């Protein structure tokens, strides 16, 4: 199988879907040149009409995507960094996610919002926040955050074909990661987790960059005879409760690893769910590993200290083993 980078896999997904369906187009700030390489090369193939550069106007661009979607198109709206969604928050929360319901099922809004999520490049607070938890909270927005090139391509293609609003999150930190990507077309269903490592002793649930943190921790733990099962959720909304609960039924221990502010986070949700639904299987308290509860500092040393680390995960697992 050809090996490709995470970014190249995203490029491929975009190009293939744009070839397949003329209603699919890309719109955002500097998507032609590609502030993130994920949109590069598309303008050369698809031209001005299908790769649309916009003014720096997140609210209007997001809303324009919604308007285009409810009138028959399938926009991919690239808003660059997760935090820039804050400027478009109203359009996403009040309109995109709600229009179909609010208007009694008269319409649908098949569009994809695409941003980089989280920290890792010492860009400081304004460019380093993880935002998935906000959109998980909103009803009727699907949320995806792939960790591998394979997952990235298959999930983005599903997102573009989905008839509902989908937030596709990608990670700059993973942009250069390589992995197998089949030459033949494939799709990955939204909402299905992937067990990235099997194990019987503890369930570690992660997503995006934290999958690697969890896998590293699992390797260290294995040397000590502790076999962790690492579940890559891939989709955050809806998320694959069944796979997680099944794993916890087996391991009796649960650690959630999530790069984000900790309070009301994805990790909170996973832990609450496991605590509710797998209580009788749990042999130890659930554990959360998330960012330290502070804004994101610029200094690489401090940034690293704020993000969930392999040591944090090992410590959390240890707590479940006592």
């Amino acid at each position: 199988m050809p090996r490709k980078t995470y970014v190249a896999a995203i490029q491929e997904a975009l190009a293939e879907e744009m070839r397949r369906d003329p209603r699919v187009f890309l719109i955002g700030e500097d998507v032609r040149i590609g502030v993130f390489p994920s949109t590069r090369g598309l303008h050369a193939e698809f031209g001005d009409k299908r790769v649309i550069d916009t003014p720096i106007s997140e609210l209007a661009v997001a809303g324009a995507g919604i308007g285009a979607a409810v009138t028959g198109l399938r926009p991919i709206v690239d808003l660059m960094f997760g935090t820039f969604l804050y400027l478009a928050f109203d359009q996403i929360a009040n309109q995109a996610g709600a229009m179909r319901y609010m208007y009694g099922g008269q319409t649908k809004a098949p569009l994809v919002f695409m941003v980089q999520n989280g920290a890792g490049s010492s860009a400081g607070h304004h460019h380093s926040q993880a935002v998935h938890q906000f959109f998980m909270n909103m009803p009727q927005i699907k949320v995806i955050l792939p960790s591998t090139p394979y997952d990235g391509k298959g999930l983005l293609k599903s997102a573009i074909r989905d008839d509902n609003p989908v937030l596709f999150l990608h990670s700059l930190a993973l942009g250069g990661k390589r992995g197998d990507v089949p030459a033949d077309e494939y799709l990955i269903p939204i909402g299905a987790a992937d067990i990235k490592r099997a194990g019987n002793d503890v369930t570690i649930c992660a997503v995006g960059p934290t999958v690697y943190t969890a896998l590293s921790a699992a390797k260290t733990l294995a040397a000590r005879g502790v076999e962790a099962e690492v579940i890559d959720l891939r989709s955050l909304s809806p998320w694959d409760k069944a796979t997680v609960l099944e794993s916890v039924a087996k391991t009796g221990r649960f650690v959630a690893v999530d790069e984000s502010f900790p309070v009301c986070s994805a990790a909170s949700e996973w832990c609450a769910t496991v605590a509710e639904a797998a209580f009788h299987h749990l042999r130890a308290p659930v554990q959360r590993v998330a960012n330290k509860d502070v804004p994101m500092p610029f200094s690489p040393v401090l940034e690293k200290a704020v993000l969930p680390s392999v040591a944090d995960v090992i410590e959390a697992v240890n707590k479940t083993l006592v």
Partner: protein
Amino acid sequence: MHHQDIAVDVVVDIYTRILRIRRFEEEVARLFRQGQLPGFVHLYIGEEAVAAGVCAALTDEDTIISTHRGHGHVIAKGGDIKRMMAELFGKSTGYCKGKGGSMHIADFDIGMLGAIGIVGGGIPIAVGAGLSAWYTNSDRVSVCFFGDGAANEGSFHESLNLASALTLPVVFVCENNQYGEFTPAAKAMNIEHIADRAVGYGIPGVVANGVDALEMYRVASAAVRRARGGGGPTLIEAKTHRRGSHAEGEEAFLGGQTYRDEAETAAAQAKDPLLLLHTYVGENNILPQNQLEALDAQITIAVQEAVDAARNSPEPAVETVFEDLWL
């Protein structure tokens, strides 16, 4: 008014739209006073010329987006007052099966893409509808209604600039009824004409008499023609007045506080778009008095039927809470 060039059937059409809005909303006001309608209700009485004149300049394929004060837009675009009334009652037979209510009525079949309760929230969506027309080489035009207050929201600025930068077929209709809730437009902005903001986007800005439906029709027709011809967006400012409250029930709610003086209110009452067009129709022998009366009677009956139907419709079943979700 000198509108002799506007065809008689167009005048009658516009008159009918205004009258339908007026009678519908007069009934809504009564129902609200009687405590029969849940939620908030914002009436369009006094502003009907804007929706009626503009929508008469549109085809069925053209789309509109509306606001919290949206009944007039829906009716002017051809909405079904039965389904509207049922929606105001929150009934299962309403446009949105009771999920939307007064501030969130849509009829996608007639190009009414929805009323939006967030001030300024519909403007970007209208740009998207224009984008979609441009993308598909359709000659659809997208019209966006919003208030003077909304013109101070960031969404207004970003949307007009975006539509201009991409030369999209959008007509922005600012209904300047002089107030955003209880704040006069003159206090919320330091300019006389919102239309002057068009300069900042390199698009035409037109001030129109929003009480004169035929002028609205004329101005909108020109903007629609321009948009359809690939000329890009226009900003129309319709100077108008809301005759009543910001929201129904306001007097009680404000506990005696006032924000308009009596002279101003009286002046606003005097500028009645229905009366104005009624006079024009009479003076120009467009419809004889008995036909006017018949029309009125017919609309009044239709509104009553809508009320009866709404009252007799079932509440939405509780299970429908879990319908109209992800496809």
